């Protein structure tokens, strides 16, 4: 509890699936304020009510936005800065869209849809990080980009989504490298297969019960947002693999006092 006290966090794609679960986890961990962004406002309002039951004192701001539009990114940034008093501690670039469903082969992919997927999944994270850097660089901050194994392997039919995640992996590496001399750290997480509406849309013939509940993969997102991970930067994690082992390899020992460290 309270691993995130005094932290202001912005989470995109927060209305459902992993984004919603990260928001609830951050509320449980005592974040000071959350800014939640999604394409539709009603699920965000419901999430805000749910958070109020967990953390009645928490400041929660919800924003309806289409992150495929650069003007909406600027609006999200401005509202975030206003809501958080000009500072931001944690930025979770979680929002992504799948593109056309059923997912066509690249050979058949409509160009407009391709552009739209790249705008939301790749350009928006770039613009959000760029626009909000001034609010993070003085005090330090944690940026977590949500990637996918489709960002490392070119699966047939995963078209623009997979390519956008390839781009996001590169974006994350480059940001991490350029920000190496600052207190702003960038890490990226592949949450693995989850039972979410988007994944069910992507693979309607698969059995979703074999996939993880998104509520069960949030721990790494809490860890990377907390000060306990202050020395972790520029790394890719897989939420459903033994990422604690990866931390151990990165010379993180139980002396950090973090609950996950003691599990190593």
């Amino acid at each position: 509890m309270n691993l995130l006290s005094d932290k202001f966090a912005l989470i995109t794609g927060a209305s459902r699936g992993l984004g919603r679960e990260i928001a609830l986890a951050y509320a449980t961990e005592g974040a000071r304020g959350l800014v939640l962004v999604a394409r539709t406002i009603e699920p965000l309002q419901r999430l805000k009510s749910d958070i109020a039951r967990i953390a009645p004192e928490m400041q929660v701001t919800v924003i309806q936005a289409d992150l495929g539009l650069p003007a909406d990114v600027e609006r999200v940034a401005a509202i975030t800065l206003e809501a958080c008093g000009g500072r931001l501690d944690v930025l979770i670039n979680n929002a992504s869209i799948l593109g056309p469903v059923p997912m066509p082969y690249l050979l058949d992919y409509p160009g407009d849809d391709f552009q739209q997927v790249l705008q939301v999944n790749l350009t928006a994270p770039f613009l959000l990080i760029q626009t909000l850097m001034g609010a993070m660089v003085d005090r330090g901050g944690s940026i977590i980009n949500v990637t996918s194994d489709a960002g490392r392997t070119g699966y047939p039919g995963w078209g623009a989504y997979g390519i956008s995640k390839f781009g996001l992996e590169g974006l994350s590496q480059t940001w991490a490298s350029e920000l190496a001399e600052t207190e702003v750290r960038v890490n990226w997480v592949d949450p693995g297969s989850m039972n979410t509406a988007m994944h069910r849309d992507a693979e309607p013939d698969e059995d979703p019960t074999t996939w993880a509940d998104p509520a069960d993969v949030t721990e790494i997102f809490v860890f990377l947002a907390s000060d306990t991970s202050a020395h972790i930067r520029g790394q890719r994690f897989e939420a459903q693999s033994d990422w604690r082992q990866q931390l151990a390899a990165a010379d993180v020992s139980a002396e950090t006092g973090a609950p996950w460290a003691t599990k190593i």
Partner: protein
Amino acid sequence: MSASARKTDEVENWVQHPRVAGVDSHSFYLPPELNADRPPERRGLVRDQVRLLVLNRKTGATEHSRFDRLGDFLRPKDLLVFNSSRTLPAALIASGPQFDVEVRLAERLPDGSWMALLTGTQKENRIVPELLLDFGLDLTATVISQDARIPAFWRLRFSKSGTDFLDRLYRLGEPIRYRYLSSPWSLSYYQNVYGHRPGGSEMPSAGRAFSWRLLFELRRKGVDTASVTLHAGLSSYLDDGLDRQHIASEEEYWISEATAKKIRRARKSGGRLIAIGTTVVRALESMAQQGDIRAQHAYTRLRITAGYRLQLSDGLLTGLHEPEASHLDLLAAFVPSVTIQRAYAEAIEQHYLWHEFGDVNLIM
């Protein structure tokens, strides 16, 4: 005049102290081709590759350089003080059954109302108290009162506040733009990379040339940075006569304890304080007038002109200001007016570019 806490009953008289016409005027001819009509990035430059005119305060000597070489003129322990203000899309169109009017937001007042310039129509006389302006998306504003000195200046109260107001403003508004621009550049071009406090009607443009690459380079060199916030109002009332009067306004500013601490440290260690923009000079000198370098949130009517003894600002990075601009009065506190005139003549001869997307001038 010193910085002071603002009282609510002063709201109606927020514009005071008109400049005495004819004193210290800064007239010169600026060839139209020297108006920067587009951002450097749209002229084939990186934002930090604009030209840098360095003016030596002691000798009056000039040196011509490029902004990404700023580090050549700075020393370890120098402190650059930025204005963290982020530019709003402060121009809105209100539609009514009778007429449309452009609303240019100028300043948010302590009670949450706004002072705004109402333009774009010959029907100013239709603007009356209690008129409801409709901007769409459920955003309206009620006209409250007219400014005593500037006829097109009105106090408005919007139907939304806080983040709800910002949400509507960003959906509906456009950045304030002037006629010399070649294109309606989007809001992102009107931001400094480090800006993180939304609220400015216009960009504090002296800092526009800074890139993160340059900021990191300066940090490696041992140059420190800090920020204050002072949201710039309108640079023009779209009325040459009024603009020439240099009507002084009261402005709100914030200085954090972290910044105050850095300023104290720089002064103790012999580092120079370089204000990035005239707004920063006003905030710093207003703080100095309080007699103590400490965190503060206050309002200032401080007027800095020739003969003003600067207490904190050792140097100034600023844009190139157009003829008769009030900023030129402030520059005269750093160097004699005749030195500015000579430097500007040189800048014109060497085809420097003016305005928010133009070249910059370091005075130290």
